[in-house]
């Protein structure tokens, strides 16, 4: 390993070493606040390190990793999202479990897994990243052991993820059997000789799509999403919805563009069908759902369907649109789950519609922030979600994916209903039930308040002046 190799891979070391540091720290003394600070600092440090990368330079560590602008940008995005999740986790766990410190180890390791996914260019690193991520998630989902639903969700995710990993592994084996390579470039090189994908290879890809589709909760591999979202602690749900899915999407984009999947009708057809089904079924399922966490689960199914529109559009604009949409979607989703966490109490998460009734009158600021997040999810102008969706449509139109674009537009209309309904519920007058007292140290609330404030500011800023974010994305992605 050369010195440059090492310098490039430092971000992964920072994460792993901070995980070890936390472990040591716990064995000496359990201190939630300190662990939280270490976590946050290591994520910030990692991000600062990442920013120093030159976006124009592509560095490859054979055979596993590649550091290019696209990877660096998404790594930064993942780290920042993880930081935001950490911020909302603190207040959430402060009032719950006795052993809350180990959560941060898992959080950091899951982030590490996502980062590995983002930079991998080899099936081995891909699978390693995926498993680091998944294994951490099993425990994170079931972290609140005393809650039956949490246990159930963890177990379900464990079984289903293992099942889907089997598909991925078998798919890899078939691909290897055909091409004799586990490396993306090798596969791409093999494919250049063919105008049609050989059957064995196609079967391998198909099985891998099943696994990837599961991780992204695309229809018809989506059914775990609602149960797991509902059972997992709110910050963990935020993490699943953002970081874990983001890493997989980046991987998908990288692999697909490298092998130039756009020329193969079969692959395009599969993804088109999956995208349309995800948009529709996600929205239909959310339509009359009364559980806010489940609504967000279903909404995430359709949102990943939207992202696939730009993914299928391809080209540099498609990649830009995917990146931009991920940014907008991450801000919004973490924001929404952040509000959900702050409203949750010791016994259960605030996931019933009734918990939001009259929120506007009780806690106007909280309600305003949540409204902003929901409007962004719905894609209303002045929010990041609008620009993101606009970008997706622009990318789709650019390469004439009219079917997908029209489905996206139609689904935006359907989706509007359930987002607006939550807002409407917040407006309803709600009598009785006194405002619950703050039980924690005020600094805890300040932390969540500042986090939420920054998220909403970012949301509006990106929504009103998208040019800045666009230029950042262009700088990193165009290589």
């Amino acid at each position: 390993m050369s010195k440059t190799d090492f310098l490039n891979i430092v971000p992964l070391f920072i994460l792993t070493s901070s995980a070890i540091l936390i472990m040591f720290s716990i064995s000496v003394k359990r201190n939630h606040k300190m662990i939280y600070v270490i976590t946050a600092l290591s994520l910030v440090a990692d991000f600062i390190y990442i920013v120093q990368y030159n976006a124009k330079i592509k560095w490859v560590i054979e055979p596993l990793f590649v550091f290019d602008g696209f990877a660096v940008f998404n790594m930064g995005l993942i780290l920042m999202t993880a930081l935001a999740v950490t911020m909302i986790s603190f207040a959430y766990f402060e009032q719950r479990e006795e052993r809350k410190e180990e959560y941060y180890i898992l959080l950091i390791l899951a982030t590490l897994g996502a980062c590995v996914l983002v930079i991998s260019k080899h099936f081995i690193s891909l699978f390693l990243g995926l498993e680091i991520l998944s294994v951490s998630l099993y425990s994170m989902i079931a972290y609140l052991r005393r809650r039956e639903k949490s246990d159930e969700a963890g177990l379900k995710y464990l079984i289903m993820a293992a099942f889907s990993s089997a598909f991925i592994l078998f798919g890899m084996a078939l691909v290897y059997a055909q091409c004799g390579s586990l490396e993306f470039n090798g596969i791409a090189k093999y494919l250049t000789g063919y105008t049609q994908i050989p059957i064995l290879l196609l079967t391998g890809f198909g099985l891998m799509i099943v696994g990837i589709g599961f991780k992204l909760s695309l229809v018809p591999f989506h059914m775990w999403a609602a149960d797991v979202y509902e059972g997992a602690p709110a910050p963990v749900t935020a993490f699943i919805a953002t970081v874990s899915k983001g890493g997989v999407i980046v991987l998908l984009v990288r692999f697909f563009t490298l092998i130039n999947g756009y020329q193969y009708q079969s692959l395009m057809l599969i993804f088109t069908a999956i995208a349309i089904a995800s948009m529709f079924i996600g929205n239909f399922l959310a339509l009359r759902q009364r559980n806010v966490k489940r609504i967000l689960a279903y909404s995430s199914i359709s949102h990943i369907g939207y992202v696939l529109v730009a993914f299928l559009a391809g080209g540099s604009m498609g990649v830009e649109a995917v990146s931009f949409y991920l940014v907008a979607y991450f801000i919004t989703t973490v924001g929404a789950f952040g509000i959900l966490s702050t409203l949750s109490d010791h016994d259960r998460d605030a996931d019933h519609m009734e918990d939001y009734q009259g929120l506007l009158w009780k806690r106007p600021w909280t309600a305003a922030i949540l409204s902003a997040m929901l409007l962004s999810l719905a894609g209303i102008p002045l929010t990041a979600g609008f620009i993101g969706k606009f970008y997706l449509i622009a990318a789709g139109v650019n390469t004439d994916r009219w079917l997908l674009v029209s489905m996206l537009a139609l689904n935006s209309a359907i989706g509007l209903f359930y987002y607006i309904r939550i807002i409407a519920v917040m407006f309803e007058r709600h009598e009785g039930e006194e405002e619950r007292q703050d039980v924690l140290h005020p600094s805890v609330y300040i932390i969540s308040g500042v986090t939420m404030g920054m998220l909403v500011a970012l949301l509006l800023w990106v929504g009103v002046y998208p040019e800045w974010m666009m230029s950042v994305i262009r700088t990193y992605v165009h290589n």
Partner: protein
Amino acid sequence: MEKYLWLVPALPFAGALILILGSGKLTKGISGFIGAGSVGLSAAISLVLGLQFLREPATVIQQQLWSWFSVGGLSTNFALHLDALSMVFIFVITFVGFLIHLYSIEFMHDDDGFTRFFAYLNLFVCSMLILVLADNLVLMYLGWEGVGLCSYLLIGFWYKEEKNGYAARKAFIITRVGDTAMAIGLFMLFQTFGTLTIQEILNLAPQRLPMGSETGTIIAFLLLGGAVGKSAQLPLQTWLPDAMAGPSPVSALIHAATMVTAGVYLITRTFPLFELAPLAQNWVGIIGAVTLLIAGFSALTQFDLKRVLAYSTISQIGYMFLALGVGAYSSAIFHFMIHAFFKALLFLGAGAVIMVLHHEHDMFKMGGLKDKLPVIFWTFLIGAGSLAALPFITAGFYSKDQILWMALASEKGNIWFFLAALIGAFVTAIYTFRMVFLTFYGEEKTHVGHPVGALITIPLVILGILSFAAGFIELPHTLGHFTLFSDYMTAVVPATELSPGIESTEWLIQLSAAVLCLAGVGIAYFFYMKRTDLRAELKSSMIVTNRFWYSGWGFDQVYDFVFVKPYVYLSSINKNDIIDAFYKGIVSVSNFFHDAFARTQNGVMRWYIMGIVVGAIFVLSIGLLFQ
């Protein structure tokens, strides 16, 4: 002083804002003080400005406050434009408005909605001022709609009674017909001129619109439509008599002195457009002439005191339209001002009468108030004299006489206009003194409550003096030839061109008007004082005509038949909106799919795994099929 122009509309607006925000927290004293005080300050500022204009009528004060919006080629400023014409209007609005505010403090004192009343009234004054001060037509339209809204709110002020709500809606909807025409007119103006700034349009008009051009005529007619709606002229006059459901000060301020004359203002303001469309201008005169006649005859048969005044207002505005139609702009504005004084006076007097008689509106149940309420009687008499245009001593004589003369003498006038105006003057005298005799003479029929206080009598006296004396600022050739007002107005509007060689007949016309007026008073005296027994006979011999006039010439019935009934019928057959069915269809399809897919989310693991397996089969089969 010029730089304080913006305060004129801003003060009432601030007053309205304070009253709205403080509603429920302010005492009646403070509310009244804010309401009347803010308008009083505006009146003081406009008085000072007015003195400056008297010295220098050609002054124009432009004040650009801020840019309102700028879209494409249209950039609209929040800018005020004060010239001799708008000066007359802001003087009347603020000064008469202030007197009416004072009056209202006592009149509305026992009303629960006291603060709300003043808030609306202040908002109205502000909107009306914006209307007449606007430098562009968009801002004017804002004021135009603002006064419409306030009119709606104030007609339905006592909203607990259902019929007041209906009256308010009627006024709002019918004026909306005119407003829509006006809006289309504004669009066409923008298309033709590329601007909506009034002065720019007026300057460009002679170049862009040739004499009698089709576009110009259509625009003028559309503007006339707006004016007709707001000013309750034929065929959109039906809302005004019902608008009397509002409190009397509202009738005095909005439905007599100011808002209903907005149409007169609009036409005078844009008169070059009408000069370029002779057909439209002629129609202004025709509408005025017909309206003044039919409203006058309707007024003859009413027994509700306020409805007499309402029809009389329609009729008097008809005179103003007639004057505008023959190009006598200065005469129209002069009559507007005098009318504002005496009609506000009459409404306030009527309101006071109705108040002391415990909300009795029927004139036939009044009588004998002459000695009980001397101040109200004498001021009312002055107002009535002015309305009937009693020769030589009343202001109304001088303003109306000028219109009669112009109807014949102007180049655009003709004998028919003159005859209509002359007959109208005769009818006016009859119904006015019928009202006076029924209300104040004869025997007392309803018990008189407590007498009225100073806040009611002072405005009456001041308006009485104005109704009497304000006429002397403009005397005809034959009587002293003093032309203060028309000289003043030449700064904005041209003097009327007279037909050649007609001056010599002016004295004849004045004489005939004077004789007819006195004859009208005589007839009223004969039927309502001397031979009251003949009244029933006369009525029964003309019962059909009487009913026809009483109902306002059947316009309501016709509109009901032509518009309301078919509309109600159409909406009744389309009760479950056909177009809605499509959207309902989307809803039920979505719900169906929701239910269908929700059933798959049953929480059972083996089912979920099956989902993945099915998905895998699907993916592989597509891959193989479309390889």
